[in-house]
C-alpha cells in the first residue's frame, strides 16, 4: 500500500507538512482536493521521489508513472515516438510496438500516431499524454490536475477514457484536482486538504458504482460539501 507516515517538510522555514500521514487505497483512484497552493503538488512530488521530505517515511513504490497538467510531449517526435520513448531500453521492440498500439487505440489517437504534437488539438495531445502515462505500466500513477486546461466536453470525454483504461488494468492512481464534480466521477477515495501546514479536513470512501453516481442525492451533497470546503 502506498502511504506517507509522519511527514515533515518545510520550504524556506514555511511548514508545508508537519507530522502528516495518509494512506491510499490499493488499485483504486484517490482524488486529492484542497485550496490553491496548499501543497498538493508537493505531496505528489514526495510520492514520486522528486522532493525529499525532511522527516517521516514514504511507503511508495519504486517507480511511478506521472500525468502532468500539460501534455509535455517532445515537439520533434511523433505521437507514436513520444509514447514509445518511455519504454525504450526497457522492453524488447516487439513488445513496445504492441503496447504502444494498444494504448494509442484505447485513448483514441491511433489515427494521429504519425502526427507531431503541434498538429494536434489540446485534447488530442492530452490523450497522447494519457497513453504515455498508461503505457508505462507502473503500479502507481500520479496525476497533477491533468484535465485542468481542457474545455468541459473534452474533460469529461478524457475522464471516461481514463476510467476505461484503469478498469482494463487497475493500478493505484492518485490525482489532484480543483473540480468537485471530477472528484466524484473519478474517486474511490476522496481526500480534502487544508491550508498549510497541510491537514486532512475530510476523507470519504465512495462505495457506489461509478455509473450510478450521476444524479445520486448523496453524491450531489458530497459535491456541494467538497466545493464549500475547497472554497474555504
Amino acid at each position, binding site marked *: 500500500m502506498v502511504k506517507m507516515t509522519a511527514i515533515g517538510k518545510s520550504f524556506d522555514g514555511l511548514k508545508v507538512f508537519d507530522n502528516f500521514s495518509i494512506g491510499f487505497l490499493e488499485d483504486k483512484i484517490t482524488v486529492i482536493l484542497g485550496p490553491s497552493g496548499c501543497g498538493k503538488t508537493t505531496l505528489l512530488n514526495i510520492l514520486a521521489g522528486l522532493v525529499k521530505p525532511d522527516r517521516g517515511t514514504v511507503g511508495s513504490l519504486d517507480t511511478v*508513472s506521472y500525468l502532468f497538467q500539460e501534455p509535455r510531449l517532445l515537439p520533434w517526435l511523433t505521437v507514436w515516438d513520444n509514447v514509445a520513448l518511455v519504454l525504450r531500453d526497457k522492453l524488447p521492440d516487439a513488445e513496445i510496438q504492441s503496447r504502444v498500439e494498444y494504448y494509442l487505440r484505447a485513448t483514441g489517437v491511433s489515427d494521429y500516431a504519425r502526427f507531431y504534437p503541434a498538429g494536434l488539438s489540446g485534447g488530442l495531445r492530452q490523450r497522447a499524454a494519457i497513453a504515455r502515462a498508461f503505457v508505462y505500466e507502473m503500479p502507481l500513477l500520479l496525476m497533477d490536475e491533468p484535465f485542468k486546461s481542457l474545455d468541459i466536453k473534452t474533460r469529461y470525454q478524457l475522464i471516461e477514457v481514463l476510467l476505461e483504461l484503469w478498469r482494463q488494468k487497475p493500478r493505484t492512481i492518485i490525482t489532484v484536482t480543483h473540480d468537485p464534480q471530477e472528484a466524484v466521477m473519478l474517486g474511490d477515495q476522496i481526500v480534502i486538504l487544508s491550508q498549510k501546514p497541510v491537514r486532512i479536513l475530510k476523507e470519504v470512501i465512495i462505495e457506489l458504482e461509478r455509473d450510478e453516481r450521476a444524479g445520486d442525492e448523496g453524491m450531489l451533497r458530497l459535491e456541494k460539501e467538497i466545493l464549500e470546503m475547497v472554497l474555504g
Partner: protein
Amino acid sequence: MTVSSISRKWISFGAIFVMIAGWRIAAAIIKQPLILPTPEETIIQLRHLVVTVDFWLHLWATLRRGLTGFGLSLIAGIVIGMLAGRDSKAEAFFRPFIILVRSTPVVSLIVLALIWLKRDSVAIFVTFLIAFPIVVQNVIEGVHNFDPELQQMLMMYRVKTKRVFTHFYLPSLAPFLAAGISSGLGIIWKVLVAAEVLAYPALGIGTQLDTARVYLQTDKVFAWTVVVMVIGLLFDYGLDLLLKKPFRVWKGATE
C-alpha cells in the same frame, strides 16, 4: 507570398542593378582596368578561371580549411557551451576566455598564428577562433532554453541519459546550432582568405588573390573576390533554408 514581400524583392533587385551600374559607370570613367576592371572583364576572367583545374584545387583547399576549422569550433563549442550553459560557475569560468578570443583583433590572431604554426594550419586556426565564440554563444543560449518541464518528464519516466542526449538535448539545441552554423559559415570566409593572403599556403584563394595583386591582374582579384562572396552567401542563405525546414515540422503540420 504577400504583395509587399514581392515588391520588396524587386526593390532589392533594383538596388543590385544600381550597384552594378554604378560599378560599370565608374569603370567607364576611370578607363584603367588595372585600377578598376569592368563587370564584363570580371565575368570573362571568372569564366577563364572556372574551366581550369587549378581553380577547383584552390577553391577546395580554401573550403577544406574553412570546414575543418569550423568543424573543430563546432565540437569545442558544443562541449563547452553545454558545460557553461548548465552551470553558472562553469559559465563564469569560460566567459573571460570567450571574451578574450572575441575581442582580440583578427589581424593579431593571424600574425600570431603565423609565428606559431605552419603555413597550412594558419587559416584553420584562425577560422576556429573566429567561429568558436559564435557557436559557444548559440549553444549556451540553447541550453538556457531547455524546457525544464520536459526535462522533469524525462526524469520521471526514467529515460536513459543517452536517449535524453539524442532525443532532448540535441533537438533542443538544433535551432540554436543551425543559427550558429549558418551565421558562422557566412562570415568565416572573409577572415580565412585574409589569413591565406598572409600565410601564403601553396593552394588557396588567398594565395591566388595576392598573386593576382602582385602581377597587377586586378580583374582576377575581382573574380576571386566574387568567388569568396558567393561561398559566404551560399553557406549563409543556403544553410538557412536547408536547416530551417525540419523545425517547421515541429511547429505545425504532419509528418
